[in-house]
């Protein structure tokens, strides 16, 4: 049952010519105009079409309006209400959710006798509803386009009805020309128009048909309107498998058909577009055949096989459409509508190879995007450094993570085990630049920190000595030093770093050490220049020159320092420090590994490193020009961070083995993940200052947060292992713990202790007391097997073995766990844990001085705590920087509901 429209057709079709599909006279009513999709699309359509939407509906929102660049569109509860308000329309657009579409169509048809067309945008309409919609429209003489489509548009009359053909800038793609487009794919309707423009072809009418089972405005309907449309010299069809819509159509004018979807025949279910299921005889291959037969060509048109006739060409890739169209039209003596616009060649807009050397076919050079995108991309690239989204960082970290299985923590992708084998100065840089520093950058770091360690003449020295005299543990002493290293003490160094970043931000400099970089391109105004120069008050400070000499002696290179030195005036220590840190950070920053904020705050961290290490050295050893007797120039030019740390702990430059041990110890202690108390202290301090206003966050106070959150239990207990070993080796004649020919019977020593421990256990059990735990033995995770290993201990042990290093204390521990089992003091062979390694290495470093009486047991305890603090100082810097970049204000607090009250 259908109303008779065009006489020659056995069904209703009202649109006789394509130019009737979207005309300037059409007046539109949009159902669900305030829905999510319509709200963004309708204003663009309305403005593009010169204001063709008379009203929209949204139940319960009568009286509201949809704002558009072409004026407000009134909203009514229903179509009837809009009509009663005096509005008239001939075209309905449906943005209703799927379940409401059928009723919306019924409403449009029943209450508006002027209705001629409906465009249904909604996708996933039930076939049940689609068949009833078809029947209603046929019976009442209404043309429908869709559903599951993007509507229709006319490039000649600049009218767009329904969906978003041409996106938010329809004028970019809907170029007036001579080709009609009919596409099963909404997205490709626009894409095809855009592709055609590259060969000089514009469009007349564009129809996104949808690809549901019911294509309400199908290829046959299009063919009729196309034949009668004098504007359209050719048509482009985009067709997917499924349905017989394109079969046996007589195309009166040239056509390029693109059939895509051969792969779908492999599937047995509907894919993508709901109706695109290959049934019998309507697969992609079948449809290709229909068109090839209709066009009388020999096959598919490609660049290599340009099969085309005056009737048309079949392509299977939309990229071939422009060439096929040009070829077909040439056979009809027809030329393109306008000169080609743009090309379809590969044009990467944005890329980052992350420092990799990619082959040329992958590393395609960037191409400037068309406007307005080029401007937007430039604005993006002005954004130097990584941009990190903020989020609640309570108990979370972007810097560290502990693997619960292996108990191994990683910091910025490097496990502490790997870090333990890295030079110490590389570890100090990692938390801040997120990459392992190379030898050159490590040297800069050594100089920068060396310049901060000697505190002679600085009030810090008085304060820390007072703190030491007051009986404080090393963490409290370091905290005093950190507290004095407040914002004003780094103000100029940070300003220098900021100025350097600003000066070079748009310079295309990739490597801060680039000798070939032309610094004459960097213009520095007088005020900025002044910022870098030493003041009169600093005339006596010998360090700037010493730093520059050390830089030259170590073969350092820095674009930034080169610029500053080009001023020909005396530079301040702050300026040189900032030049060093910016040199180290520049590469990671432009590779977007770190943020600009991190680069600009780097001097503060290095100053804190130096001051905190310096604070652990008693006052009397800080002398003008020397530290613990080491002359300034030697320290600046030759010493490493490991040497400095060892000096702070032992009062002398370490030998190679000692330096290695200190490096391993510090590496192992860097981090235990964000859950560690020390990390929590640092993170809480950042959260309390408010990382969302990063300039107010006191990084020194965050260091204090870590220091106050370490103590005799968390950090100081490293001494327990040493104390245990001292007990075992009391009175023995050991002189060199690294000499395997020590002459001691470790097995016997271990056996003796195991027996006594077993007795102690039995006794404690009888009394119902808790048995003391042995430091360095056993682990709650690595247990239960006949023989157990802590993978961290194994890693270090293997490394030592490979190097031919021997450590008697470690060896004793290995005997101990076996003997404990042999005598029945343990149910299986316990593991030797990581604490044992730490105790063994540290005691080995300190053994000789302890034996000679130079170090007291109290000194050993201080040394154990200090080495922990040096390690954690690095880990804390990582957490502070991470929280500063990622966190939100006060994000570490616990909601009241999650807190408990106990009595």
């Amino acid at each position, binding site marked *: *049952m259908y109303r008779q429209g065009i006489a020659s057709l056995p069904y209703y079709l009202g649109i006789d010519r394509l130019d009737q599909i979207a005309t300037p006279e059409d007046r539109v009513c949009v159902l669900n105009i305030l829905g999510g999709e319509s709200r963004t*699309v309708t204003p663009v359509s309305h403005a593009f079409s010169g204001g063709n939407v008379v009203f929209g509906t949204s139940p319960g929102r009568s009286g509201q309006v949809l704002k558009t660049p072409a004026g407000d569109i009134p909203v009514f509860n229903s179509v009837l209400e809009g009509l009663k308000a005096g509005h008239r329309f001939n075209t309905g657009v449906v943005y209703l959710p799927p379940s409401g579409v059928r009723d919306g169509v019924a409403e449009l048809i029943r209450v508006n006798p002027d209705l001629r067309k409906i465009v249904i945008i909604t996708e*996933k309409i039930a076939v*049940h509803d689609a*068949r009833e919609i*078809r*029947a209603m429209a046929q*019976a009442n003489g209404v043309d429908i386009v869709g559903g599951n489509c993007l509507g229709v548009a006319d490039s000649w009359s600049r009218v767009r009805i329904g969906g*978003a053909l041409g*996106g*938010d800038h329809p004028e970019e*793609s809907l170029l007036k020309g001579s080709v009609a487009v009919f596409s099963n*794919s*909404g*997205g490709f309707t626009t*894409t095809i128009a855009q592709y055609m423009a590259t060969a000089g072809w514009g469009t007349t009418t564009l129809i996104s048909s949808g690809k549901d*089972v*019911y*294509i*309400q405005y199908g290829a046959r309907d299009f063919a009729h309107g196309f034949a009668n449309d004098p504007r359209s010299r050719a048509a482009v069809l985009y067709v997917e498998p499924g349905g*017989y*819509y394109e079969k046996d159509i007589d195309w009166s004018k040239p056509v390029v058909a693109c059939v895509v*979807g051969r*792969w*779908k*025949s*492999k*599937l*047995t279910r509907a*894919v*993508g*577009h709901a109706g*695109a299921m290959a049934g*019998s005889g309507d697969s992609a291959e079948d449809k290709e055949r229909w068109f090839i037969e209709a066009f009388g060509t020999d096959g598919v048109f490609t660049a290599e096989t340009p099969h085309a006739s005056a009737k048309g060409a079949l392509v299977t890739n*939309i*990229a071939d459409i422009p060439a096929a169209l040009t070829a077909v039209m040439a056979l009809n003596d027809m030329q393109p509508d306008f000169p080609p616009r743009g*090309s*379809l*060649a*590969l*044009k*990467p*807009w*944005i*890329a*980052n190879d992350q420092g*990799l050397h990619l082959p040329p*076919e*992958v590393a*395609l050079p960037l191409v400037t*995007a*068309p406007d307005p*995108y080029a401007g*937007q991309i430039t604005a993006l690239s002005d954004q130097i450094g*990584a*941009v*990190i989204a903020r989020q609640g960082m309570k108990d979370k970290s972007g810097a560290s993570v502990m693997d619960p299985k292996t108990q191994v923590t990683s910091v910025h*992708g*490097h496990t502490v085990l790997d870090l333990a084998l890295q030079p110490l100065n590389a570890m100090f840089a990692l938390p801040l630049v997120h990459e392992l520093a190379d030898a050159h950058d490590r040297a800069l770091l050594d100089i920068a920190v060396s310049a901060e360690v000697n505190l002679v003449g600085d009030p810090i020295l008085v304060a820390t000595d007072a703190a030491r005299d007051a009986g404080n543990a090393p963490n409290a002493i370091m905290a005093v030093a950190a507290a004095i290293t407040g914002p004003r003490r780094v103000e100029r160094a940070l300003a220098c770093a900021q100025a350097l970043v600003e000066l070079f931000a748009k310079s295309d400099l990739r490597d801060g050490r680039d000798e070939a970089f032309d610094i004459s391109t960097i213009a520095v105004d007088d005020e900025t220049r002044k910022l870098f120069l030493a003041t009169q008050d600093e005339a006596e400070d010998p360090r700037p020159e010493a730093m520059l000499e050390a830089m030259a002696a170590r073969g350092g290179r820095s674009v930034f320092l080169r610029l500053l030195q080009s001023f020909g005036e005396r530079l301040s220590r702050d300026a040189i420090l900032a030049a060093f840190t910016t040199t180290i950070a520049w590469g990671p920053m432009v590779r977007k*590994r770190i943020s600009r904020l991190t680069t600009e705050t780097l001097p503060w961290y290095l100053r804190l490193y130096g001051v905190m290490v310096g604070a652990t050295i008693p006052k009397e050893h800080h002398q003008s020009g020397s530290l613990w007797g080491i002359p300034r120039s030697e320290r600046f030019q030759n010493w490493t961070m490991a040497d400095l740390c060892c000096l702070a702990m032992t009062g002398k430059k370490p030998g190679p083995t000692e330096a290695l041990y200190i490096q391993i110890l510090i590496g192992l202690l860097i981090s235990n993940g964000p859950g560690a108390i020390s990390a929590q202290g640092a993170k809480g301090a950042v959260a309390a200052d408010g990382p969302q206003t990063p300039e107010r966050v006191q990084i020194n106070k965050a260091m204090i947060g870590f220091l106050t959150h370490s103590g005799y239990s968390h950090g100081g207990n490293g001494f327990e292992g040493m104390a245990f070993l001292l007990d075992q080796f009391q009175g023995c004649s050991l002189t060199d713990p690294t000499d395997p020919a020590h002459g001691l019977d470790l097995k016997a020593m271990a056996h003796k202790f195991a027996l006594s421990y077993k007795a102690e256990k039995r006794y404690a059990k009888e009394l119902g007391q808790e048995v003391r735990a042995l430091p360095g033995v056993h682990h709650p995770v690595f247990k239960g097997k006949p023989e157990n290993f802590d993978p961290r201990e194994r890693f270090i042990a293997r490394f030592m073995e490979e190097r031919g290093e021997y450590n008697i204390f470690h060896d004793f521990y290995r005997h101990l766990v076996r003997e404990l089992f042999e005598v029945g003091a343990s149910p299986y062979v316990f593991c030797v844990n990581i604490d044992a390694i730490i105790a063994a290495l540290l005691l080995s470093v300190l053994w000789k001085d302890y034996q000679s009486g130079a170090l007291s047991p109290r000194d050993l305890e201080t040394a154990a705590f200090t080495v922990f603090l040096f390690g954690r100082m690095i880990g804390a810097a990582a957490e502070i920087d991470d929280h500063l970049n990622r966190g939100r204000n006060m994000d570490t607090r616990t909601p009241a509901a999650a807190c408990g009250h106990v009595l």
Partner: protein
Amino acid sequence: MQVTGMLTGARLLTHVGFPTSEVLGPDATEDQIQALIDKHKLIFVKPLFRGGVGKKGKAGLIGRARDLKTALAEKERLYFAEHRHGNAVAKANGVTFEAGVPADHEVYFAITDDTRFRAPTMTITHRGGVDIEELDKSEIASVPFDALTGLKAFVVANALTRIGAPKEIISPLVQHLPKLWELMHHYGMTTLELNPIRMLAGKDGRLTPVACDFKCGFDRDDPRVGRLGLPDYLFAADISDFEQEVNQLRTHQGQSDVFVINDKGTILAPTFGGGANSLVTEVLGDSAIISSDFGGNPPYEKMKAVASICYRHFLKQTNVLFIIGGKSNNTDILETFRGMGDALREHFAKHGPVPLYVVVGRGGPNLVRGMGNLADTLDSLGVPYRFFGFDSAISEVVAYAKQVDQWMRSGGRDEIARAMNISA
């Protein structure tokens, strides 16, 4: 979403009172089978397939038995039978025992939406029981009818008369067949096929149509399907865990079906737009892991959820994460890219980083903001990438993604792994 066979079919047909053969399921006891044989003399043993399995390729997969011993032997033979047709392979899990219906006439009947007429269409022939493609067109009637008034008795009568059906079957069919429209239209079916309907003679000689095989397809977008209360497992055939999980998020706002193309593939391509999906899947071939269409302006949360599922199932094997679509019309690029980027960040944090190269080809609202957001995420993860705008041909970008995949396979993956300090 298809159902075949009489076990479920008989249940569905009772909703509209259409006569069916008696059927027992795989859990039938020997006593029940014996009773069925006693009553009907002949029974058919058929493998029980989930999903859609047509007649084609079923030769040899039907057992007939007149005694219990044969019935049990056939049960054993067919219980895990495999059905192959083209690329589709179905494995049975169980058998049905269906009563033989003695009859002189077999009828084929189907209702489906025919795109030639754009209307519901009845197809009928009195020469049923075979593939109807084998019959002469003059023996088959394909008749569209009005969806609003439905399948009427006269439509059936006229059609049967036109193809010269025996007079004695016309009246009973006219009486019963219109009921099937009620079943199809009101319970969310897209197609319903009974073949054969056997015309069983009653004591008075009057014939009754009895459905002896059943096949229907359901519309997954039609909530009416829920009225039948069919268990989910009926539709779970051949769908991977991934497909089940990801397609649960399917709504009208973004994301059509997602399919696994090759679970050993190396390019993970979240694709936007049905057209792009077709093109990309075709050109990527076996390199593609999935075929997807995430267009339709999915909101951030949904995009992130879908991306998370894709990453969890496939990122480990992925060389190229390929985000591809044309110039979107209304899909917000910032929202979708932010969703996919954040999901990647979280995946790396939870499951560890993987060596990856990201290729993007896209256009649409908030394009550069979206690209900038994704670039920031990838920079922070140390993942290399290249983004193309809408002015590069989508097919060229697909070819580029394949080229990157080739490079990844021949050492590139190791190189990226080294740079990211992870294992390849």
